[in-house]
Each structure stands twice: as structure tokens, then as C-alpha cells.
């Protein structure tokens, strides 16, 4: 069964450093998403991406964040200058289409720890 994969599983970084979280969506999916979960809190939507453009983003997704599909398989989330409050589990997801009948498939997550 095809899966969304994410690397690394755990990333530790110093405050102010740039990090790139990587995701490989399911191969025939066209829509990509990032969510995050701060420990003990809700899973929060960050951004959705389609046709090489951001289609929707939340208030959390400020200028420190960017997304990119650098090639035909990877989908990345970059945080330019990490803050302590960026420490969270980051989930990538993908869906075949946009309609509600197209479920979002999630990866196992990357745990980001900012020191």
C-alpha cells in the first residue's frame, strides 16, 4: 500500500537555524499539505499546495515558513530561523484530488526540537 514518507523522523536544531523537513507524497497525488502538533495540543493546519503554488495557508504560516516541490517526488517545508515555539511534530499529507471524497493520507511525522 502506498504511503507518505517523511525524513528525518527527529530533527534537533539550535534556535535561529534553518531547517528543512522533507516529505515524499504518494506518487499520483496532486495536493500536498503540512500540519503540525505542538506537544499536548491540537493538530494544526499550516499550508496546502497544488500545481506549484500555495492554495491555502494558516496564520501560523508566516514569512519564516516556505514550501517547495523541488522535483517530481519531494515536498519540503523550510523554516528559515527557528524559534523555540516551532518545536512540534510536523505532519505531511497528500490527497489525489481536492474534493471531500479524496482523503488526506498522512506521513509518520518529523519531530522538530528547537533548543
Amino acid at each position, binding site marked *: 500500500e502506498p*504511503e*507518505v514518507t*517523511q525524513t528525518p*523522523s527527529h530533527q534537533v536544531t539550535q534556535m535561529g537555524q534553518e531547517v528543512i523537513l522533507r516529505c515524499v507524497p504518494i506518487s499520483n497525488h496532486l*495536493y500536498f*499539505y503540512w*500540519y503540525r502538533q505542538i506537544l*499536548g*495540543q*491540537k*493538530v*494544526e*493546519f499550516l499550508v*496546502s499546495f497544488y500545481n506549484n503554488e500555495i*492554495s*491555502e495557508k*494558516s496564520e501560523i504560516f508566516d514569512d519564516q515558513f516556505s514550501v517547495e516541490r523541488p522535483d517530481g517526488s519531494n515536498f519540503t517545508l523550510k523554516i528559515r530561523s527557528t524559534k523555540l515555539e516551532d518545536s512540534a511534530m510536523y*505532519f505531511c*499529507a497528500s*490527497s489525489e484530488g*481536492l474534493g*471531500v*471524497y*479524496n*482523503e*488526506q*493520507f*498522512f*506521513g*509518520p*511525522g518529523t519531530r522538530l526540537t528547537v533548543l
Partner: protein
Amino acid sequence: AQSVAQPEDQVNVAEGNPLTVKCTYSVSGNPYLFWYVQYPNRGLQFLLKYITGDNLVKGSYGFEAEFNKSQTSFHLKKPSALVSDSALYFCAVRDRERGGGNKLTFGTGTQLKVEL
């Protein structure tokens, strides 16, 4: 703004007993509702969804959920729990009226523990 509440951080059930994991929602229009499950070191796995039609929705692994519009609830149920059902369960909503976007709003999750 749409929101989801899962009032219980943890639910404990004996194997073989029925289980219920509660979820209530708030949206401006009519909702699309989802349940996801997360096992340790795994991603969120889709269990079931309510789009329209029959209020009782059946999903994977014997789970079902009942949509109740008057109570704005979408509780997850299973008639007979298994130890292997022990996991973290998330309820999520998408506002049907928003159109366009596919953003899911999640609850905080409920840890289900099924014991022998």
C-alpha cells in the same frame, strides 16, 4: 471558525466491551467529519468520514460513527474493543460551506487504552 472538541484525553475499556470516543464540532455551515487513528511512530490513518446521507457511518477495523446534527456530535464507536485498538484517535472537521480549500481542523486527540 470551525472547531472540534474531544472532551476526554483518555478512554479506558476492557477488551470485548463496547467503546465510545466522543467528538463535538462547530462549523458555520454543514460539516464534513472524519476520524483518524495514530499508532506509535506512524502517521494519521483515515478511519471513516461523514459526508451526507445515513447518519451512521461504517469504517475500517469495525469502527463506526454516528452523526447527530442536533447535538453537533460525531462519536466514534465499536461494539467490541480489541487490545490492538489501543491508539490515539483524532476527530476532524472540514466546513462544507467554505468551498475551495481542503483544510482539516482537528481535535486534541483521545488516547484509547484497551486492557485484557
